[in-house]
């Protein structure tokens, strides 16, 4: 068997972290070689990048550095394709990053971005959209296999981290801190997993206001109209009003959701979403005089991503921890990114996230150019996180993130073979960048107000 298939088999294992091969580093490098050889035949950009960097084969992990895509690549399409409805062009763009051939789309059926995504889905191409960190949404291609893995790995990771979940016969009232529709975002896999562990008819969503890619597009279009001066004041007013109303509807739904959840706190439940959202539950409970640790001890909480949020107190994480009494049986915190398969679940014994064996962590300097991984596979390094996702089927799995992390290799804690990630901060949240002054500006600096703020808020998610 090849190194690649050895590692991929672990995706079906209950505990891929302790059952990864002892010589993980060597096996991963070999698997990366196999993947690269295959993908460079399928993705021309990767092949070109390799030729330019004079990389023929990957002898060391260092050789992969020029082949990693920045996460920006998944939003490198020109906005005008969407604004002007050039769906064929948008497909051509997606094709440049995709292993599978995309054709047979009925372009007459497509009227907006949601339509394009749905038409792709009808043809077996499951594009995932996310707002990313710059306000422009990314489109990440998933094949049918990628999509299938999406929810299987969610199940695997949560059950690995929270021991209370290991009894597969148990079913819960499920509360998901996500809108009920928006099927092509991460919501789909959360919903699918939620349904699989829920008591019949007992799945609840924070809001029924749909998350729509077209909505994001409308915002981008409005930003452009403001920047080029063509937006009328009444149009800006109408747009802001529509957004406020939308926000108010979401908030009203969310209040109902929280009330219901708090009323049922003596039942064992499953709650899943982002930490910032979870804190809203805690804050509401405090207003109602509900003390810490008042929930049923068998309630399971799984959170992920988005530690940042507007108007959160400094200690909101600690408050959540006390309120829900996080422990090794009831709690998972997932670290991941939309560009890679699965996520890194919380490893209670290490108080850190652990990286599954099919994700090869590549720690780089802040510029993303120098490899910092310890040469002997042991030790702690700090830097910009990149990953090579060996599982990714529809795209090249090498991607550089915007996160600054501390990764510990070869720690040997509690039999876990795979590396752990301790601290995560986004480079853009680090201080600096204030006094390197230049008179050169960008057009974006001239867009002010709610539209600009909305981008900020989305970026902070």
């Amino acid at each position, binding site marked *: 068997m090849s190194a690649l298939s050895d590692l991929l088999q672990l995706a079906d294992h209950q505990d891929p972290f302790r059952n990864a091969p002892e010589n993980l580093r060597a096996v991963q490098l070999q698997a990366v070689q196999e993947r690269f050889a295959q993908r460079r035949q399928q993705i*021309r950009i990767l092949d070109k990048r390799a030729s330019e960097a004079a990389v023929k084969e990957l002898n060391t992990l260092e050789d992969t550095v020029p082949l990693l895509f920045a996460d920006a*690549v998944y939003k490198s399409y020109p906005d005008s394709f969407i604004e002007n409805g050039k769906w064929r062009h948008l497909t051509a*763009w997606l094709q440049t990053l995709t292993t599978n051939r995309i054709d047979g789309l009925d372009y007459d059926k497509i009227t907006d971005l949601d339509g394009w995504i749905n038409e792709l889905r009808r043809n077996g191409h499951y594009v995932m959209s996310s707002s990313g960190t710059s306000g422009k949404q990314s489109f990440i291609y998933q094949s049918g296999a990628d999509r299938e893995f999406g929810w299987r790995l969610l199940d695997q990771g949560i059950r690995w981290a929270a021991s209370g979940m290991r009894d597969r016969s148990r079913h819960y009232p499920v509360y998901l801190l996500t809108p009920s529709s928006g099927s092509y975002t991460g919501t789909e896999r959360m919903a699918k997993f939620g349904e699989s562990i829920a008591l019949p008819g007992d799945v609840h969503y924070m809001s029924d206001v749909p998350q729509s890619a077209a909505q994001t597009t409308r915002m981008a279009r409005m930003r452009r109209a403001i920047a080029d001066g063509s937006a009328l004041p009444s149009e800006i007013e109408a747009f802001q009003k529509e957004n406020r109303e939308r926000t108010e509807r979401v908030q009203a739904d969310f209040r109902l959701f929280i009330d219901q959840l708090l009323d049922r706190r003596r039942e064992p439940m499953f709650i899943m979403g982002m930490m910032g959202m979870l804190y809203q539950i805690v804050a509401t409970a405090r207003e109602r005089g509900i003390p810490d640790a008042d929930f049923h001890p068998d309630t399971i909480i799984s959170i992920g991503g988005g530690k940042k949020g507007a108007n959160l107190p400094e200690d909101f994480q600690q408050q959540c921890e006390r309120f829900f009494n996080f422990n090794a049986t009831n709690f998972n915190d997932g670290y991941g990114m939309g560009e890679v398969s699965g996520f890194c679940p919380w490893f209670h014994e290490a108080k850190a996230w652990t990286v599954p064996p099919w994700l090869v962590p590549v720690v780089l300097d802040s510029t993303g150019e120098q490899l910092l991984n310890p040469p002997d596979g042991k030790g702690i390094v700090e830097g910009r996180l990149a990953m090579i996702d060996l599982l990714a089927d529809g795209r090249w799995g090498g991607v550089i993130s915007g996160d600054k992390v501390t990764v510990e290799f070869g720690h040997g804690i509690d039999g876990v073979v795979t590396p752990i990630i301790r601290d995560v901060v986004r480079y853009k949240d680090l201080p600096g960048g204030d006094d390197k*002054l230049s*008179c050169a500006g960008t057009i974006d600096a001239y867009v002010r107000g709610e539209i600009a703020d909305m981008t900020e808020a989305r970026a902070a998610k």
Partner: protein
Amino acid sequence: LIDEAAINPDALQSIEKEQFMEQTETTATQSETSTQTSASAPLPVPHVYRGRMVTGDVIKHVSRDLGQGFCTPKIELDDLVWPRAEPGPAFDVPVEQIIDFLVELGPRLHLDANPLMQAALESMIQVSPLGRRILENCYRDIPNLFAREVIEDELRVSLGDPALVDGWAARTLRGRPSRLRAFPPRLVHILAGNSPMVAAMTVMRAALTKGVHLLKLPSNDLFTATAILRTMAEIDPNHPVTQSFSAAYWRGGDENVESILYRPQYFDKIVVWGGDSAVRHVMRYAGPGLELVAFDPKVSISLIGREAFSSDEVLREVARAGAADVLSFNQDACNASRYQFIEGDEDDADRYCAQLALALGQDYRYGDGQGPLVPSDIREAVDVLREMEPLYRVFGGYDGKGLVIRSEEMVDFHPICKTVNVVPVGSLRDGARHATVATQTVGIYPPHRVTEVRDALACAGVQRIVALGESISDGVGGYPHDGMFPIHRFMKWISEESGPNHQETR
């Protein structure tokens, strides 16, 4: 390299000691703040308080662009303000004497003759990404800003009558007598460091106002302003102009300094050179009595007519002019062209792009043929666009020699590091529609066709229109800057309407 080692930083300190020994404060050794320690010894950055140089290594910093460690003395807040109860040192000095002093200063700043400027240049190489060749060209051009004709034109055009800065000019409006004075202001200048000319231009204009001036140094130009002020002190440490300037570095946005200093009791206006974050920091303090004068961060473009295709020779020339406009300070300036709109079809545009990519690989006075490498976010985007020929076509590469992307519509990313987006248009007027409130300079070829677009451009927000290739040409000495006459904006315009006009001026 030998020169560098010889002059910096030991030579810098020895020069300082020779000339300013009695004024140099004892340097403390403990470090108050330490962001990051760089491998080499931190560069000493002197402060200048009214002609008195102060050195020290109490506060350590790291420069933003090149990660160079540097150190400064502790900020003496009281030395950075001029009490309002007293007139500034130059308020009552006739402007003729100020001009004479500046004209004397000009040749003294000449790089070959001035060890302070030589040392500043060597230190600048450690903190500025522009590199020795461009920095040296700038330093050689600095004396030109102090030529008598330049100074006199700047003052006359800005104020109308230079006498207004010296005294109370009598006038009678609709039968009512009154006096008007352009009163010397108290200004903080938050300098930009993408070009050393910013510091020199600021000193020249600020001196002409006769006001008092605090210069906040940027981390990418820590040395030019203080070298000029110290040269002034060499001419005459007690001259009112020397006594009217102070310069210091603190981290931009440092509340410990800015929340104390930025008050109307100390200053009338804060003059800020670009930088979105710098403008936003200052906005917090601007309010009644403390006005913001912003040289806004801007974007520049080019409009190229179909005449460019009249022959291969002409096309090459036009591409060279187009490249010259891109290369202003390696495209890190507000007047650097980033988007070029060319009258023609895609094939025409491609022919121009090919020539432009070649021309970008050559040296210009303020731009390098071999510039900084294209950053990865642009590389990622362009790698993908490259795959979408013929919709897009990419010329040149990521190696710092020039990158050109031809597209039907403007690209989404912000072109930097010698990256140009060329968009074919039906007419120059179509191209002009892409100008916005963010646009500063527009270069036009052929120059005579400016009449087709200048009103539309000004209407959209453009501030300066030049012949293609001249965006970096002499724009100081009577020309408006960012849509205003800076000296006019700097002054406090005071009206005295108490009784009849007894004499022409008081």
